[in-house]
């Protein structure tokens, strides 16, 4: 294990530190709450001469991602950060970054989408971007936000992947809370991420290439999309390899899903992001009372760990999926839809309930989590029927 420094820092500061250590050649910055302190902290690194990064203060998020696309196609290592309306404004460019196979790394401070306007945490923004072709990590803590950001770069630039990657953390809860975290030394991170050697770069002037060509008129658009699908499928193996390697260096375990008490759990809550901590806290209390509860945290949402999740929960009696975003008109929230689909091919399928919770930063009180476990026990005991979609704690 390498030498690490224990720090007290917010998630955003840890992300900014990770970005500094990854040494991007270019960063496009546009402020939006609660992402702002990432680009502010990085601006300090620029002013202090601690990074060589060309820092481009664009006039919008659309231009942020547009400039990142240009810079990445030019052959630079590129990073940026956004949130909420900013991510929504980038939507067109998210697809283009993935379609052009550009290894851009972006942090997203997960925040609600208007209307009505709300600056607090939920996953509406990032879940809205779930099908844009980006690899998507979720962090529970500042530490995970830091680790995910560093691993994201390795995954993005891996020759078998070459896709953009998002490292997301929950707005305010993780972005702004001061947390204990281990900061790796610069040299170790530098060696871990290595040098980026681009192919077909625009700045390889002597070997001109055209990017973003027109593939209509019976052109190979369909085949390009197939190769993109193959790449994100391949990324699952790379995410695990890179995770194992970083884990070896840091001493912190990593997997695309992370279980607690799952070995013999009868009642399981699946959560994503910061809420996993609250759920684990309640689960510990219930275990102390002898109730066989488990927690499954999803750390990588794209590519979705279908078989990993199905294997982990197939023995449970009842499962609750907590979604911090809506998929209006669908059977449930995005995580629920994926988890339920993951179990389709299994003979034994536990009862499953979907809870929509915490939209726009609504509090996730421990009593609510206890209620979910209690609902699961009632369902497993046949006292209650699975009740479809529940708005947990809504007045």
């Amino acid at each position, binding site marked *: 294990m390498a030498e690490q420094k224990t720090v007290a820092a917010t998630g955003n500061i840890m992300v900014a530190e990770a970005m500094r250590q990854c040494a991007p*050649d270019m960063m496009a910055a546009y402020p939006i709450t609660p992402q702002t302190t990432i680009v502010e902290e990085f601006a300090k690194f620029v002013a202090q001469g601690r990074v060589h990064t060309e820092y481009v203060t664009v006039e919008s998020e659309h231009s942020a991602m*547009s400039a990142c696309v240009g*810079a990445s196609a030019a052959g630079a290592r590129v990073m940026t950060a956004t949130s909420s309306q900013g991510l929504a404004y980038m939507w*067109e460019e998210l697809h283009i970054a993935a379609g052009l196979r550009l290894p851009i790394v972006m942090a997203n401070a997960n925040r609600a989408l208007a209307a009505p306007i709300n600056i607090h945490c939920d996953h509406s923004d990032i879940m809205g971007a779930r099908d844009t072709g980006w690899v998507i990590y979720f962090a529970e803590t500042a530490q995970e936000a830091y680790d995910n950001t560093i691993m994201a770069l390795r995954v993005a630039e891996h020759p078998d992947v070459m896709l953009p990657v998002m490292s997301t953390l929950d707005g305010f809860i993780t972005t702004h809370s001061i947390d204990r975290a281990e900061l790796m030394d610069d040299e170790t991170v530098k060696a871990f991420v290595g040098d980026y050697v681009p192919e077909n770069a625009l700045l390889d002037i002597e070997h001109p290439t055209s990017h*973003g060509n027109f593939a209509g008129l019976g052109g190979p658009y369909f085949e390009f999309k197939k190769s993109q699908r193959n790449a994100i499928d391949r990324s699952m193996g790379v995410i695990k390899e890179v995770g194992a390697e970083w884990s070896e260096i840091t001493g912190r375990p990593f997997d695309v899903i992370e279980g607690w008490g799952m070995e013999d759990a009868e009642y399981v809550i699946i959560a994503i992001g910061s809420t996993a901590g609250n759920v684990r806290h309640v689960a510990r209390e219930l275990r102390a009372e002898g109730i066989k509860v488990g927690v499954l945290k999803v750390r990588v949402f794209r590519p979705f760990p279908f078989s990993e999740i199905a294997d982990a929960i197939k023995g449970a009696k009842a499962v609750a999926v907590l979604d911090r975003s809506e998929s209006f008109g669908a059977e449930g929230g995005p995580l629920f839809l994926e988890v339920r689909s993951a179990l389709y091919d299994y003979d034994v399928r536990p009862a499953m309930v979907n809870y929509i919770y915490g939209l726009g930063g609504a509090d996730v009180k421990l009593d609510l989590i206890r209620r979910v476990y209690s609902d699961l026990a009632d369902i497993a005991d046949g006292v209650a029927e699975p009740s479809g979609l529940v708005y947990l704690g809504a007045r």
Partner: protein
Amino acid sequence: MANIKELSAREDRLSGGHRLCAGCGASIAVRQVLLGAGETPLVAGCATGCLEVSTTIYPYSSWKTPFIHNAFENSAATISGVEAAFKGLKAAGKIPADKRVKFVAFGGDGGTYDIGLQSLSGAMERGHDMVYVCYDNGAYMNTGIQRSSATPFGAWATTAEVGKAQQGKTQRRKDLTSIIAAHGVPYVAQASISHWKDLTNKAEKAFAVEGPAFLNILTPCPRGWRTKPESTIEIAKLAVTTGFWPLFEVEDGVWTQTVKLRERKPIEEFLKPQGRFKHLFKPENAELLASVQTEVDRYLTYIEKRCACG
């Protein structure tokens, strides 16, 4: 400034064989601009539009220089990113400090005056070392001749129709060149493909400055203007000689008319050969036709006065 003999000896960086229409002004503008750039190594970008779809049909490309198309509204932001990458890679020591590369973005009037205005304004304000070239054919030609904010007053377009209740576009065109000049960038010019010497000189100046430069080039579109393909240059010339499209430049804030009109032709001579203005010549539209002349006079007077102030 290069003469025609020198220009003809330069390599064409947009090769023939692309799928633009016969008589399209856009490719003429691009070739003149790139000739003006001389031997300077270039990365080019282009907004979605006729020029882009016709020159980059996969697996072919007409561009003999590195090229990127991103989307419709963001060729300025995209090329600003390429330029920033160049600086960042120099700072990283991955590109030699003395290496010179210039960056050029192309866009039509729809991608520049309208949907791309914010992206262009941002890139100009940030001071990137890049040239932005608008090929202005006065409408969304790629999607089928819809009006843009560059469409002239009174012109027909498929979203500014002619009928009992309306006679084409009811608004005047936006003066984008002055808007970009107001950004205080080192070089801004308005040019026409009919005045190749003036245009290539302006391109040469645009590529020579350190920092952002902007060229607004009038490029007739035979499909949208309802003109004969072989008349493209003639029509572009009439735009200048009638005062519809004054040729001027703004160098470090100093405004100069580069082609002065000794004798100005009436606007009818520019309008008459174009099917998009034919309704203006109906007897009942005489007043409207007169107001087109008034609008041209107003804009030309403004530019002349502005240039007289230096």
